[in-house]
C-alpha cells in the first residue's frame, strides 16, 4: 500500500468495480441465467461492506498504528454508501426476479424476506445523511442516525442466515464484527469500572 493517500475518486471506482461486473454480467447473461442468480453476489458485497465499515472503529482501537486501518477509516463514508449501493442493486435484482409485486407481497411475511426489507430501510437513512451538509445541519442527531447501521447489520445477518441455507456463511462473515464489537464493549466497561488501568 502506498503511503500517499489514494485519491478519493479512485477509491470510489474500486468500490464500484464489482457492481460494474455484476451489471455487465447481468446484461450479457446467457439463457437459463436469471436475475435471481445475481442476488447472492450483490447481497454478499453489501453485507461485507457493512461489516467492513463497522469493524474499522474497534480495529483502530486495537491497532492504533495500523496504516491500512487508518486509511480505510478515512474512506469509511465511501464504504458505507457503497454498502447501501450494493443493497440497492440487490433489491433491483430481487424485483426483476420476482416478476411482479404480487409475488413480492406473497412472500413478505417470510422472516427471511422482511428482515431484508428492514435492513434495507435501516441502511437508507445513514446513506442519505452521508454528506457534509447533513453532518453540519443534523449535529448530534447525525451520529445517532449513522448508528442505524448496527441494526442493519444484525438484520442482514438474520436475512442471510434464513435465506437459502445461509447460516454457516452468514455467521462466518459476521463473526469478526461480533468479536471486535465484543472486545470493544469489554474494554469500554473495563475502563469505566477501573479508569487507572491502561488499555494496552
Amino acid at each position: 500500500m502506498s503511503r500517499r493517500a489514494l485519491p478519493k475518486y479512485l477509491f470510489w471506482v474500486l468500490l464500484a468495480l464489482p457492481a460494474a461486473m455484476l451489471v455487465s454480467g447481468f446484461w450479457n447473461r446467457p439463457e437459463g441465467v436469471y436475475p435471481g442468480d445475481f442476488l447472492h453476489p450483490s447481497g454478499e458485497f453489501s453485507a461485507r461492506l457493512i461489516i467492513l465499515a463497522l469493524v474499522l472503529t474497534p480495529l483502530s482501537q486495537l491497532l492504533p498504528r495500523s496504516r491500512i486501518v487508518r486509511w480505510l477509516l478515512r474512506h469509511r463514508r465511501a464504504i458505507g454508501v457503497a454498502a447501501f449501493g450494493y443493497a440497492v442493486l440487490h433489491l433491483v435484482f430481487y424485483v426483476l426476479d420476482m416478476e411482479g409485486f404480487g409475488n413480492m407481497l406473497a412472500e413478505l411475511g417470510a422472516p427471511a424476506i422482511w428482515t431484508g426489507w428492514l435492513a434495507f430501510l435501516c441502511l437508507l437513512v445513514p446513506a442519505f445523511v452521508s454528506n457534509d451538509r447533513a453532518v453540519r445541519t443534523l449535529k448530534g442527531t447525525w451520529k445517532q442516525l449513522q448508528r442505524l447501521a448496527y441494526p442493519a447489520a444484525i438484520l442482514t445477518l438474520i436475512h442471510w442466515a434464513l435465506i437459502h441455507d445461509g447460516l454457516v456463511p452468514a455467521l462466518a462473515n459476521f463473526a469478526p464484527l461480533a468479536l471486535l464489537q465484543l472486545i470493544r464493549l469489554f474494554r469500554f466497561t473495563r475502563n469505566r469500572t477501573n479508569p487507572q488501568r491502561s488499555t494496552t
Partner: protein
Amino acid sequence: MILRITAAAALALAGLAVSAPASATGKMTCDAPQAKWKSIPALEARLKKQGWQVRKSKVDGGCYEVYGTDPKGNRVEAYFHPVTFEKLLVSRRGEVLFKKK
C-alpha cells in the same frame, strides 16, 4: 496481546468464510441408488403438465431440487424423489409450505 491474537483469528475466520465451498444443504435427503434415477427432464415435463413453471432443477442431497412456480402461483423451491418423483418438500424463502408426512 491477547486482543491482537483475537483480532487476527477473526480475520482468519473471515478469510475462511470467503473460501468456504458450497455443498449439500441437508434440507432433504433421498438415498435411492443413482442407477435407478429417472431423468431431470422427465421430472420437469411431468411438473409442467401439472401446472408448474420450472426455472431450474438440480440434485441436492440425492433428491431433485426444483426452483419455480407451483400450480397455485407461489414462487417456491421444491424437492422430489429422483425415482418416484414424489413431492417431498415445498418451501418459500425458508417457510415450509408442504412437507411429506
